[in-house]
C-alpha cells in the first residue's frame, strides 16, 4: 500500500501483510513523523443502512462510561425497550462513534477517560453534523436539594440523570427529552413508560476497565465523510492523528484565551463591541500563540489551527453574551 505522509507529502510504501488490525506505526524517513497506518475500511454498507450527516438513527443510543457494570446495566434497560445500544468506554471512542453511527441520543459520563465527557459534549454540540444529537449527562448527585443542576451547568447537554435514578426513570427521561426535541422516538419506550424494578448488579459483571493506550484515529471531518459517502470508495489509507492529543491541544488553546480574557476583561468587551479584538489584544494573542506552539506538537499544528479556532469560538460566544450577535 502507498501512504502519503501528511506532513512532508512523501510517498511511503507499506507492506500490507505487516499491518495488524490495530494498525502499524511507520516513521517517515524524510520528516521523521510517526504515522499509524491502518488497512482501508471495509466497503460501505448499502445506502439504506447508513445515515447521512445530521440524519440520526432514531433507534440508536450511545452510552459512554468507563465502568463496565454501569454500561451493561444501562444497555440492558435500553435493549429491553427496543433500542440499539452503542457502547463506548472513553471520550475518543464516544466522539468517533457518534460521528460514524449517528445515534439520536448519547448518554455521557462527565469524567470519561482520554477526553472528558463534558468536552465530548461541547464538541458534539459545536459541530453542525452532530449538534442535533441529544445528550444526557450521567451524574451521581445524591443531595439534590443542595446541588440542583441548572441548565447552564450542563456543558450544553440537553438533560442529565442521576445514576441512582437510571433504573427507575431513564426511559421516562428519554421519552421526555425526545418529546421536548420534537422528534418521534422509535424504541418501545415511546409507546409506554416501562416501570422497572431496581436491578442488582451481578458480581460477575464487575470487570476492571482496562486502560488501553491512546488509539490513533484520524478525526474525520464532515467534508471527508461526505466524500467517502459519495464516492463509496475505500479510503486509500488511514493515517491517523491521536484524537485525544488534538482535544488536549484544543483545550489548551481554550484555556489560553480564557486566561487572556480573565485578566483583560475591559479590553475583551471593547474589542468585541468594536470588532477589533485581534488588534486590541494583539500582544496577548501573540504571547498565547507562542505558548501554544511551545506545548503542541508539530503534527497537531499542521493538522489544524486550533488556537485561532478557540479565539474565534470565544469571540462568537462572548458576542452572543453581550448582545452583539
Amino acid at each position: 500500500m502507498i501512504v502519503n505522509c501528511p506532513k512532508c507529502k512523501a510517498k511511503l510504501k507499506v507492506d500490507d501483510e505487516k499491518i495488524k488490525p490495530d494498525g502499524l506505526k511507520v516513521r517517515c524517513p524524510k520528516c521523521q513523523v510517526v504515522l499509524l497506518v491502518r488497512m482501508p475500511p471495509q466497503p460501505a454498507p448499502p445506502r439504506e443502512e447508513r445515515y447521512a450527516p445530521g440524519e440520526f438513527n432514531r433507534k440508536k443510543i450511545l452510552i459512554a462510561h468507563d465502568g463496565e457494570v454501569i454500561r451493561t446495566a444501562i444497555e440492558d434497560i435500553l435493549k429491553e425497550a427496543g433500542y440499539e445500544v452503542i457502547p463506548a468506554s472513553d471520550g475518543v471512542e464516544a466522539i468517533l462513534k457518534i460521528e460514524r453511527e449517528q445515534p439520536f441520543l448519547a448518554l455521557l459520563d462527565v469524567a470519561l477517560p482520554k477526553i472528558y465527557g463534558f468536552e465530548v459534549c461541547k464538541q458534539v454540540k459545536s459541530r453542525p453534523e452532530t449538534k442535533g444529537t441529544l445528550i444526557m449527562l450521567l451524574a451521581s448527585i445524591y443531595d439534590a436539594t443542595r446541588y440542583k443542576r441548572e441548565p447552564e451547568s450542563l456543558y450544553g447537554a440537553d438533560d442529565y440523570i442521576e445514576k441512582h435514578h437510571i433504573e427507575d426513570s431513564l426511559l421516562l427521561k428519554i421519552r421526555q427529552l425526545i418529546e421536548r426535541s420534537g422528534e418521534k422516538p422509535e424504541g418501545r419506550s415511546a409507546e409506554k413508560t416501562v416501570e422497572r424494578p431496581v436491578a442488582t448488579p451481578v458480581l460477575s459483571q464487575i470487570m476492571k476497565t482496562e486502560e488501553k493506550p491512546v488509539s490513533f484515529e484520524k478525526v474525520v471531518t464532515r467534508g471527508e465523510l461526505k466524500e467517502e459517502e459519495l464516492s463509496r470508495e475505500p479510503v486509500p489509507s488511514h493515517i491517523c492523528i491521536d484524537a485525544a492529543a488534538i482535544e488536549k491541544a484544543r483545550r489548551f488553546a481554550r484555556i489560553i484565551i480564557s486566561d487572556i480574557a480573565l485578566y483583560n476583561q475591559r479590553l475583551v468587551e471593547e474589542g468585541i463591541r468594536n470588532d477589533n479584538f485581534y488588534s486590541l489584544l494583539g500582544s496577548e494573542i501573540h504571547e498565547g500563540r507562542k505558548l501554544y506552539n511551545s506545548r503542541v506538537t508539530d503534527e497537531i499544528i499542521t493538522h489544524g489551527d486550533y488556537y485561532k479556532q478557540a479565539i474565534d469560538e470565544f469571540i462568537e460566544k462572548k458576542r452572543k453574551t453581550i448582545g452583539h450577535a
Partner: protein
Amino acid sequence: MSFINYSSREINCKIVYYGPGLGGKTTNLQYIYKKTNPEHKGKLISLATETERTLFFDFLPLALGDIRGFKVRFHLYTVPGQVFYDASRKLILKGVDGIVFVADSQIERMEANIESVENLRVNLQEQGYDLDKIPYSMQYNKRDLPNIAPLDEINKVLNPRNVTWFEAVAPEGTGVFDTLKSVAKQALFELKKKY
C-alpha cells in the same frame, strides 16, 4: 524540602497554594494572614509585577507543638495561576513540603483546573517530586457561586486519587483553615518521619 534553623530552633516547612488564575489562592492566604496571631507571623510579602503576583508569608502556629524540641514554622506561598507564568510556578515549587490545590468550582473554569493540576504534576516531576506522594490537599473554592460544577463531578475529574478535599468560600473563610490544617498535618507527619 524543609530546612532547619538551628539558632532559632525552628524547622521551616513550605506550603504552596497552586491552582488556576483568579481561583482564590491569594484570598486564602490573605484570610489566613488576617486571622493569624500578629506576634507569630512575618510580613505579608507581595511579589507583584504588572501582570503576575506571588504572595508569601510565614507563621509559627504554637498549637502544633514541636518536633524533637524544634518548632515548625510554616511558609505559605501562592503561585501565579495564569498559564503564561510557568517559569515562576516552577521556581516557587522548589523545596516544597506540601501543596494546596485551590480549584475554581465554576463550570467555565473546569478546563483551567484540569490544566493546572496536570501542570502541577509535570512541574513537580521535573524537580523529582511525585504528586501522589507529597502532602497534598484539594480545595473546591467559590462554592457560593451559582454556576458551579457538582462536587462529585469536580472531584472525579480533578482528584481521582481522592485526597482530602474541602469546599470553600475563601473571602468568608469557609474551608480555608480546614484545608491548611489538613495539609499541615500531612506535612508534619512527613517531617516527623524524617527527623
